[in-house]
């Protein structure tokens, strides 16, 4: 605790608590001021009322019995209570006292607070009201104002004692709150430290209370999730570059070295140069594919999407790959429904199908059959690529979309290991789902384009952006 306490004092939540306590005290002080003042006003007005009713009574006796009756009345009252709490003064215009127990007064008409000296103790505060009764007589009636002062003193005392309690409560609450917040923040920073130390799978525990902290923690965890995925893909790419680009670069270097040492004739040099160019092209192609995937994955502008004639596109791709099938002595059959249209980028879609077909042909032996089917169902347009090759083991089906990932069995076949990553990136951009299943034996890849009415979001975009595009030209 001796270590934790200073830390609590340094926390922002505790500082906040202090500020709150200060504000609370200030507002309580203001409240006191108002109560104090209002009490004064209330007591003064009730004293006024007492004084005024006495004055009215005395005025009545003046009207009824004349100056003598009034003087008698005043004298009688002073006799009854010579030391208050009501005080009287009846004096001539020249200040001579006719009757009463107040000192002479020359302040004229109006309400006034006086101090009446007393022989047996300290002077008494008196709240008085003086009026001219006739041109000859001045009457003043006052009451002891001591209750007002007592009342206000009491208010001050009550406030003093309660404010101490309030302050203690505010500070204690602040300390508790601060401690609670501190613990949760500590959990977050401990997790952050663990992650920095290399444990990327760590997540901040959620309390389940659904408060702001839980929301914050959920957001942070989601961010960590994305970061981990991004890091993982960067890690894969750098591993991929390290392994898969090193091989062709090594080959290129060896070729150059061999030419440098052995090539004698122009023809030998030419052959070496041609080999080097094709090695370089392969490396550049891998880089190009990486760049493309990155570009597509980072959200290629969907506003360029247009309505693509999928049937025509597939027929072109099939035509382009027919020679490859013939070369590999494979049977390539296609069954494409007519007038299928999808929203998208023609070039990227062509690349996606090309990669899938090329993949099927490359990994299937001679004599295998490759099939492409495109059909329309009420909910989607489905394009299926089937081969009778070795297929992909269930465990590897997710991983084949990773960059540079290659099945052990296909390490020997040429290829960058990026084909399916590109397929996945393009499919994601077009909201196309990919499903890999067994076609016993072989692999069946099904791509599903959502039907226009189910693709509300994507369907709106091209319209909206066409108008933007129109404006910019």
């Amino acid at each position, binding site marked *: 605790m001796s270590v934790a306490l200073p830390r609590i004092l340094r926390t922002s939540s505790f500082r906040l608590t202090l500020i709150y306590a200060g504000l609370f005290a200030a507002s309580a002080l203001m409240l006191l001021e108002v109560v104090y003042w209002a009490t004064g006003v209330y007591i003064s007005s009730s004293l006024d009322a007492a004084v005024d009713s006495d004055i009215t009574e005395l005025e009545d006796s003046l009207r009824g019995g004349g100056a003598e009756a009034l003087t008698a009345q005043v004298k009688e009252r002073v006799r009854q209570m010579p030391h208050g709490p009501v005080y009287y003064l009846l004096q001539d215009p020249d200040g001579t006292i006719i009757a009463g127990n107040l000192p002479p007064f020359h302040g004229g008409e109006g309400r006034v607070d006086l101090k009446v000296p007393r022989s047996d103790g300290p002077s008494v505060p008196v709240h008085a009201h003086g009026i001219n009764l006739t041109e000859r007589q001045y009457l003043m009636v006052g009451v002891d104002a001591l209750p007002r002062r007592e009342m206000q003193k009491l208010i001050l005392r009550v406030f003093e004692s309660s404010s101490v309690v309030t302050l203690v409560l505010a500070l204690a609450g602040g300390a508790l709150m601060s401690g609670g917040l501190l613990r949760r923040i500590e959990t977050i920073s401990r997790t952050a430290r663990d992650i920095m130390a290399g444990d990327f799978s760590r997540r901040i525990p959620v309390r389940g209370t659904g408060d702001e902290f839980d929301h914050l923690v959920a957001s942070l965890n989601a961010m960590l999730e994305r970061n981990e995925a991004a890091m993982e893909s960067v890690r894969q790419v750098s591993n991929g570059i390290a392994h898969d680009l090193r091989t062709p670069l090594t080959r290129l270097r060896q070729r150059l070295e061999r030419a440098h040492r052995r090539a004698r004739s122009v023809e030998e040099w030419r052959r070496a140069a041609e080999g080097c160019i094709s090695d370089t092209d392969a490396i550049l192609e891998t880089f*190009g594919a990486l760049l493309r995937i990155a*570009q597509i994955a980072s959200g*290629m502008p969907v506003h360029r999407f247009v309505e693509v004639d999928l049937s025509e596109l597939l027929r072109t791709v099939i035509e382009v*790959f027919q*020679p490859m099938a013939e070369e590999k002595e494979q049977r390539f059959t296609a069954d494409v429904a007519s007038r299928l249209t999808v929203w998208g980028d023609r070039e990227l879609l*062509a690349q996606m199908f090309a990669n899938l077909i090329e993949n099927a042909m490359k990994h299937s032996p001679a004599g295998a059959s490759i099939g492409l089917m495109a059909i329309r169902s009420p909910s989607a347009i489905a394009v299926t690529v089937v081969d009778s090759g070795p297929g992909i083991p269930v465990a590897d089906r997710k991983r084949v979309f990773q960059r540079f990932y290659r099945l052990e069995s296909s390490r020997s076949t040429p290829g960058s290991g990026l084909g399916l990553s590109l397929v996945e990136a393009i499919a994601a951009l077009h909201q196309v789902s990919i499903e890999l299943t067994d076609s016993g034996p072989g692999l069946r890849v099904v791509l599903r384009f959502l039907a226009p009415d189910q693709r509300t979001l994507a369907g709106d975009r091209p319209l909206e952006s066409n108008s933007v595009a129109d404006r910019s*030209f």
Partner: protein
Amino acid sequence: MKILLIEDDGENADYVANGLREEGHLVAQVASGADGLICAMENGFDLLIVDRMIPGLDGLSLVRSLRAAGRHTPVLFLTALGGVEDRVSGLNAGGDDYLVKPFAFSELAARVSALGRRPRTTAADTKLHVLDLELDLLSRRVRRRGELIELQPREFRLLEYLMRHAGQVVTRTMLLEHVWDIHFDPRTNIVETHISRLRTKVDKGFEAELIHTVRGAGYCVRGPA
């Protein structure tokens, strides 16, 4: 051909310019966008080769300004940006062709000559001729020495493209782009297969071969030299 090369990478600029000079072109070199625009506006060039990323004024804006000023000089974009989006925006800005770095010089040379001798207005001609080969764009019929040759639609488009660029070398990539509308290399011998089929139909049995293979570069349709 008078060519203006707007490229800031000196080494690459020299490589391209020297190569084109060897091909017999006159090449002027400029290294910034602003200079390039002034140069392109003031002098009559047959072709502009513009790098997308150049200091000052970028290639896209340069070509937009040029087109806004009513200049129709053909433009070939040269760029390290090879995404779909980049190519489309280049063509939308007013570029006529697009070549992604790194490229084979033969590819550049072929595209340069294709752009240079491209008919400025769409030809009113409805028939293309090379020696005794005739391609009718309206009836979509092909005859050699008056004899009708049956072609598949794709073969017709292939022959049409080759004949529109008769006498020029046309690369495999150019054919993929213009005949198949495929903008990546599918690594199949689709072009070779079609050329060989076309050759069987067009050249077989005739003394003069019209469809030539230019080694390491592409194909060319021309009469015997």
